[in-house]
């Protein structure tokens, strides 16, 4: 396939490739530079595998000083850099560029400090999300954000993407669970934001960095907050005759003041695909299935389970099971967790979308998706983080049929437009990357985007870090810096003289 239009490769850089590779070998001696086609093959795409591109060179530094020297070197020579963690991005955030150094942070894989007194873990950015939990679980602690790729995705990548997971309605996203970072700016400067204390001094640069998709700086250390594992967790598996009824049940649960640890919805095609795949014991005669998980002290969980059951009954639930053991609870989740591969079994390819909508708009969006499904002649299965309105429509297609990928992409773009139209957003947790870059104007006007790019200008004025991602057009900073002066009379809606 053709793929998205990326910034034009800089010919001068391409010509100097050998010299750049040699210089990289000086900065990162030993095994830290991959330059042959064979070695670089593993890095030519991330989790968005439809797009592939060989990088200029792959560099795997081991120390902050090396990262700083690499960036300073590239900054001085105007060489582009694409940072990469574990490469699990679903939006092409770590897709290489032909003329860019691919800066891979996977060798930063050590946990530097575990501090139970301050409930903090200091980790290098290449440590996996689950690796943090593994390091502290023997003491009963865990790290709350749990993206589905948590076994592989890196904590540095989590910062770049502000990763979520099924538990974020109650426990927050990455942004709410990190205390500080160390990062290297494009010019090689090393700065620290936050620490083990709460709130940064000055501007909330940590807030800006989280979810900045590798365009502002390269994270070299992360301090996260860890939490004590809830005493217990129980789940309900509830079937409904319609998505509308399931949606009302979700609203009523929250309206009753209950914030479940997790609340997931699946539609009929997703239920059937999952049940066929893992035999989770899901009811097949329902239109929508809800998994509601309550966690906390046993007294609280038992109390709330009963309340949720009453609410479900009042909304016309046709089937309802309550887990009585961790084993049973995990079986409720088995189908949901296998939903993506399950859909992968019934279709040669699928395309996963990631819009978020106000929950009350669910019926309208589901019916809109049914219409689009007919229009494009492609099937669509839905899994949905029901608590926070994050939709994951899976569009089924066959890449071997000419034109079908393009059709799936157009279908996906229409779904996201619909999400924005009802007050939602393009991406809830997968990021903009290259995938949704060109849809940004659906949500933001030029002034909105320009102010975002100006933030980029404060960090990386030459647009060398991860260009071609997030913004459809990266205006030059000098151009954006010009002021448009609207000279006029002093506006005096209410003039008061002292």
């Amino acid at each position, binding site marked *: 396939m053709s793929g998205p239009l990326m910034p034009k490769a800089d010919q001068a850089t391409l010509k100097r490739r050998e010299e750049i590779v040699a210089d990289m070998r000086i900065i990162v001696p030993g095994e830290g530079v991959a330059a042959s086609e064979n070695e670089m093959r593993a890095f030519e795409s991330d989790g968005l595998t439809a797009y592939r591109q060989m990088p200029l060179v792959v560099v795997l530094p081991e120390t902050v000083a090396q990262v700083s020297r690499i960036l300073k070197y590239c900054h001085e020579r105007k060489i582009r850099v694409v940072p990469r963690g574990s490469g699990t991005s679903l939006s092409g955030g770590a897709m290489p560029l032909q003329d860019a150094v691919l800066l891979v942070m996977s060798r930063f894989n050590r946990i530097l400090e575990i501090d139970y007194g301050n409930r903090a873990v200091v980790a290098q950015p290449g440590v996996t999300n689950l690796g943090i939990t593994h390091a502290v679980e023997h003491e009963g602690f865990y790290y709350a954000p749990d993206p589905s790729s948590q076994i592989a995705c890196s904590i540095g990548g989590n910062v770049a993407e502000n990763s979520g997971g099924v538990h974020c*309605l109650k426990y927050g996203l990455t942004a709410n669970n990190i205390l500080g970072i160390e990062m290297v700016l494009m010019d090689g400067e090393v700065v620290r934001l936050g620490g083990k204390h709460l709130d940064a001094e000055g501007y909330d640069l940590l807030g800006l960095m989280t979810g900045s998709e590798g365009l502002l700086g390269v994270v070299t250390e992360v301090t996260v907050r860890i939490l004590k594992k809830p005493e217990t967790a129980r789940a309900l598996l509830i079937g409904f005759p319609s998505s509308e009824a399931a949606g009302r049940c979700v609203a009523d649960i929250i309206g009753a003041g209950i914030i479940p640890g997790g609340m997931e919805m699946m539609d009929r095609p997703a239920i059937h695909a999952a049940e066929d795949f893992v035999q989770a014991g899901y009811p097949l005669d329902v239109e929508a299935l809800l998994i509601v998980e309550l966690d906390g002290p046993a007294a609280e969980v038992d*109390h709330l389970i009963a309340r949720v059951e009453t609410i479900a009954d009042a909304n016309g639930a046709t089937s309802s099971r309550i887990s009585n053991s961790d084993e049973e609870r995990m079986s409720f989740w088995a189908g949901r967790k296998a939903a993506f591969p399950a859909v992968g079994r019934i279709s040669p390819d699928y395309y996963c979308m990631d819009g*978020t909508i106000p929950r009350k708009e669910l019926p309208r969006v589901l019916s809109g998706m049914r219409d689009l499904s007919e229009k494009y002649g492609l099937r669509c299965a839905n899994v949905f983080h029901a608590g926070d309105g994050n939709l994951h429509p899976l569009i089924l297609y066959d890449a071997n049929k000419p034109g079908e990928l393009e059709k799936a992409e157009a279908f996906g773009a229409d779904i996201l437009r619909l999400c924005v139209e009802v007050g939602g957003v393009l991406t809830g947790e997968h990021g903009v990357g290259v995938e949704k870059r060109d849809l940004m104007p659906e949500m933001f006007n030029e002034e909105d985007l*320009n102010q975002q790019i100006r933030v980029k200008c404060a960090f990386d004025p030459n647009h060398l870090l991860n260009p071609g991602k997030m913004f459809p057009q990266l205006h030059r900073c000098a151009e954006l810096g010009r002021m448009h002066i609207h000279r006029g009379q002093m506006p005096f*809606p209410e003039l008061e003289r*002292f």
Partner: protein
Amino acid sequence: MTLPLTAFTPRSSDEVLDVIRWAAAEEAPLEVVGHGSKQGIGRPVQTEHLLNLSSLSGVTLYEPEELVLSAKAGTPLAEIEKLLAEHHQQLAFEPMDYGPLLAGESGQGTIGGTLAANLSGPRRLKAGAARDHILGIHAVSGRGEAFKSGGRVVKNVTGYDLSKGLAGSWGTLAVVTDLTFKVLPAAETEKTLVIAGLDDGEAAAAMSEAMGSSSEVSGAAHLPEGVIGRFLDGALTGTARTVLRIEGVGPSVDYRIDLLVRLMKPYGTAEVIDETASRALWEEIRDCKPFADGTPAPIWRVSIAPMQGHRMVDAFRRAAGANAYYDWQGGLVWLRMEAYPEAEVLRKLIAHFGGGHATLVRAPLPVRTATPVFQPQPEALAALSMRLKEQFDPKKILNPGRMAAH
């Protein structure tokens, strides 16, 4: 200090845009205020023109089942909290009220100021600050350009999070005109466990153990002997008290209080105070009641790693006379100075004990002019902050000098 000559009180975001465009063209600096309830914090801003947002008021959207509320920037925080309470909801970050501490009225302040100062309260250690609950904004930059960021949904990673970027910026980057916050159910009830007689170090250990348990403590404070008499109208006297708050549904609160009583047994005798007294106590802890004494004596608000708070205070006291109490498991230290702020000594010690920051939230005007009110940053970070400021407000017309002297 000269008073502003002109006050603009726009009634719509379009009028805000008009004022800022004019000010940008004329390079006429503006002091930006809501109710002015936190005007005494920061370096004094001396401008000829005042931008008063208090007429830009009103809740524009509230959908309890969607856990979302939008309001214009000048909407009184009190009005929003009252509306939420009617629906058994709240701003979970428990924004503090600076009024009493700054010798102003209580119950003042706007939702715009809440974000601009990144307010929070005792629940900060569990639920976050304003920055953690803001979902989206509309704002006008110092360039005189209107922009929006974020949206009205919780899960959103579309573009840079400029809403968070404006949290704690004290009106120096852009003027926010509309805000959307995540709101959450209010706890049905609460109780507080009170342990008597711990010194600061023992209290830090006790609070750390409580926070590391599964009892889900939502407030952990230590009130030393020097301040204890000022809480609850003198109902707590004598020795220091270490207080731990549990919130939630009734059966859960009882269960977790029992759990905590057992866990805290080694630290001495404990008593449990009920909902009414508990609410009153945590409000006083939040609003810095012991130091709301009507004087301008310097007050520091220090954020530091929880286990280091008492060590830093102990070292600081060898150099200067200060009264102190601790919130956030020991990580938020309120310090009342007997005389001078001793900024350099304090900040050196904070750095020595692992880092953090100190804000001089109250001091006489000449002291605030001469002392860096906000924590000075290392060179590279300060330069980055300046570049960010230039990108939002190149003519330096928004609250010039409020956060830093340049």
